């Protein structure tokens, strides 16, 4: 291991120590649940209070996207929604650490990261409403399409990072140029072969990747213990790169740790595993019923660590904002909610004939004929057999 790796890597004594319900002493925290700034030997938050106000705003708006979408699902406007409630800090902290030239490979729950990449939240709804399978251009904000097949995107992330290496945009020393990739995935995903293979490839090629795992303690009904007997971040060591566990409900720490990991990647020092220790406060999705498999006490416990409340406490306790600030953010959230409610219903319905488009770059004669046949078939209903289709 190089000098810089040891900053991240736990020593072996810690590796097999007991696991802690609260994340253990290894947890990197810079803002306590009570809203107090604390120091950490390896990581520090180097932005000013204006930035913290920005994070607050980001998190409140992200949560609004989530609650609005949840409500839209309840009203039948979305087929399903994957809630991020409780994971705002992990997503905003890591998302705001990105440089514009970095690229993100998300799961299906990264609404906060999408926000940081300037993806119109309305675009996120398309997949869940069933009008498209990803309504944004991944090349616009360097934000890939949501991936539902668990873990698949982590390999894509490594491949993309290998491309960056070949393009000579790693380790140039120019902060505007040096690029890296962040692969998002969950605790459950850490069991997939694809994810473990992505660790191997990244390590083998020293690829500029940050593996950002949101350990929200649950993979649908299965607790983290089903996936791992050791803290997840410690797995990185076995693959040959550093791992760090950060308080996933602490936006400052998530920012600082991701920033440091990205820096390593930009420099050409290779991959880092970041385990954001957090909690899925909502259901897995709107179709899930967590009362079947977990205790409500757990949720109560985690509510005390709410990622937004602690920033609120920090800002007010230190007199950094006045009531007008919160009112403004609230107003903005209202406008965002309205944008989503009105916009969702107005999302264009897909044309049935669009099924045949974009299957290939060069349309095949067979598929063109199928499209033509289906168009004729649909036309045969026009005028008569009203309502049959």
């Amino acid at each position, binding site marked *: 291991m190089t000098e810089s790796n040891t900053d991240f890597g736990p020593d072996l004594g810690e590796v097999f120590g007991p696991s802690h319900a609260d994340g253990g002493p290894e947890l990197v925290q810079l803002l306590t649940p009570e809203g107090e700034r604390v120091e950490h030997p390896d990581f520090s938050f180097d932005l000013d209070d204006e930035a913290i106000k920005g994070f607050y705003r980001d998190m409140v708006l992200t949560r609004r996207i989530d609650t609005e979408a949840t409500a839209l699902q309840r009203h039948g406007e979305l087929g399903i929604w994957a809630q991020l409630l409780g994971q705002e800090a992990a997503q905003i902290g890591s998302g705001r650490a990105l440089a514009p030239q970095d690229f993100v490979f998300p799961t299906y729950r990264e609404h906060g990261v999408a926000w940081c990449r300037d993806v119109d939240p309305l675009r996120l709804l398309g997949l869940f409403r069933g009008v498209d399978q990803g309504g944004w251009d991944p090349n616009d904000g360097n934000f890939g399409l949501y991936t539902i097949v*668990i873990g698949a995107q982590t390999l894509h992330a490594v491949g993309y990072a290998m491309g960056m290496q070949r393009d000579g945009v790693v380790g140039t020393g120019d902060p505007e140029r040096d690029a890296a990739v962040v692969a998002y995935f969950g605790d*459950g995903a850490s*069991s997939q*072969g694809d994810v473990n293979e992505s660790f191997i490839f990244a390590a083998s090629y020293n690829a500029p990747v940050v593996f950002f795992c949101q350990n929200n303690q649950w993979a649908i009904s299965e607790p983290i213990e089903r996936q791992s007997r050791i803290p997840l971040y410690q797995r990185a060591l076995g693959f040959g790169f550093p791992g760090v566990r950060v308080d996933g409900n602490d936006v400052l720490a998530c920012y600082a740790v991701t920033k440091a990991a990205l820096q390593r990647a930009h420099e050409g020092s290779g991959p880092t595993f970041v385990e954001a220790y957090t909690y899925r406060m909502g259901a897995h999705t709107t179709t899930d019923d967590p009362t*079947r498999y977990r205790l409500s006490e757990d949720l109560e416990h985690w509510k005390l660590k709410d990622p937004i409340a602690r920033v609120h406490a920090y800002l007010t306790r230190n007199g950094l904002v006045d009531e007008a600030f919160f009112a403004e953010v609230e107003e903005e959230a209202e406008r965002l909610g309205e944008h989503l409610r009105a916009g969702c219903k107005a999302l264009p319905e897909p044309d049935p004939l669009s099924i045949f488009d974009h299957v290939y770059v060069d349309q095949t004669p067979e598929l063109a004929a199928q499209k033509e046949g289906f168009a004729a078939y649909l036309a045969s209903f026009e005028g008569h057999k009203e309502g049959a289709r």
Partner: protein
Amino acid sequence: MAKITLAKGLNAGLRAAMEKDPKVVIMGEDVGKLGGVFRITDGLQKDFGEDRVIDTPLAESGILGTAVGLAMRGYRPVCEIQFDGFVYPAYDQIVSQVAKIHFRSQGKVKMPMVIRIPFGGGIGAVEHHSESPEAQFAHTPGLKVVACSNPVDGYWMIQQAIACDDPVVFLEPKRQYHADKAELDESATPDPLFASRVVREGSDLTLLAYGPMVKTCMQSAEAAAGEGKSIEVIDLRTLSPLDMDPVFASVRKTGRAVVAHEAHVNLGMGSEIAARIAEECFFSLEAPVLRVGGFDTPYPPSRIEEEFLPDLDRVLDAVDRSLAF
């Protein structure tokens, strides 16, 4: 007699199989406390324990690969794949290992396992949750593939599949799970597993279907009857091996056949079935065998899945084209 849904039928069938044979174990994601995302294994972990109803880590290749080892050790694993589109991480284990071990060991090692896959669309889901991968497994020698279409078959077929010494890919039409109810007589003698069945008699044309399309085809036959057309419907039930004798007998009688499935038409089950009918019933045919199915495209966003899926109108359109030939 109790009226049950397909979900209940499968659940009761699994329970019966576990009671009968202590070597039967269930494995999959969320099959334990949650009872599976569709509740097919509801209550089983509570009653049979964590050793027999196993919540696995989130890794399909891991599920199927360890099931191979359990089967070699004398267990009968019943693996649940959460949704059709998530079977592919396990595809290598299924086609290269599960399907071939009996052959490679010259019969010395059996693979008595069941791979349960909720399949098909029509539930308004996001991508990868509505697919019909049956042909990929039916194309693989060494695997048997069946599809149930109703609660009573669900109850019996899952038990028969578990009792089968060969690996069985067991397809469950997920949109039927909590839909129609049927009366279950647990003292009845079930039909054999690898047998197709005439579910409606008719004389003008034979409609062939399995899984979720059986209901659609029954409705199509009913609608056609209103127009004076007499349609025979066969629930194929088994896709590998195919049970073609009842199909041949029917086509010799009607002279016409239409095969319907949700899967893509190109190289779907309908292609094999049409070829076999052409080979065996050439001189009885009044029209070419027609296929109705999903288009040769990825499964579309759910708002247009009803256009993608063959429905009553599309089936009747094929029926009309065949009759007009």
